[in-house]
């Protein structure tokens, strides 16, 4: 590590820059949540296509990797749960569908509360 840098100044600059990046990437993050919302609704209606499932699995994976980096640890935990559900659940499963709707809704709340 470069010991000539002031750690506190670096941390403050990082926090500020992270807030700017959050604003920059928010549309992309919201789009991923929208994918999860649409997939969960389709799953509940028993009309989730393989493409929608793959897109939802990918969106959940990306959110799991990103949200905690912006300090939203609960978001990462929920997105990871959705990723597992989309990977493991086959056929119509009303219990999983209800949980996926709940997760998508909670993710939206978490994301909007950081703004």
């Amino acid at each position, binding site marked *: 590590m470069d010991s000539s840098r002031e750690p506190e100044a670096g941390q403050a600059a990082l926090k500020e820059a992270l807030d700017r990046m959050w604003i920059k990437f928010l549309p992309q993050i919201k789009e991923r949540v929208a994918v999860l919302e649409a997939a969960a609704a389709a799953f509940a209606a028993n009309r989730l296509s393989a493409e929608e499932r793959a897109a939802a699995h990918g969106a959940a994976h990306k959110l*799991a*990797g990103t949200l905690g980096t912006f300090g939203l*640890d609960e978001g990462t935990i929920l997105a990871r749960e959705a990723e597992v559900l989309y990977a493991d659940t086959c056929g119509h499963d009303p219990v999983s569908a209800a949980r996926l709707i709940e997760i998508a809704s909670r993710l939206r709340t978490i994301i909007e509360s950081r703004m």
Partner: protein
Amino acid sequence: MARRILIIDDEDDIREVAALSLETVAGWEVETASSGALGLARAIEYQPDAVLLDVMMPGMDGPTTFRELRKNPATSHIPVLLLTAKVQSSDQRRFADLGVEAILFKPFDPLTLGTQIADVLGWE
């Protein structure tokens, strides 16, 4: 002298936050690439002190990119750390078997990413 890191990740948010963290907090020089193929070319030119490599990328994924880095005499000596959001132990074993220096997990803490890398690589 500042360390030089190459970040290879297709997700622009992760790539930019990791770069920001390593530049701002650790004070390192950072280059980025958005795909395995671009990363290979950049690694040859830039000769970084380490590569931070995403696992899941379209086209050439992380493990394939790692094997290509190892095959090429111009990059075979560069330490590689995998960055993944996969937390299942079967995935972790598979990645560890590749022979990478370390596996780091997403989400990472931007405040401590540099320290994590430095610790793994034994950097002061």
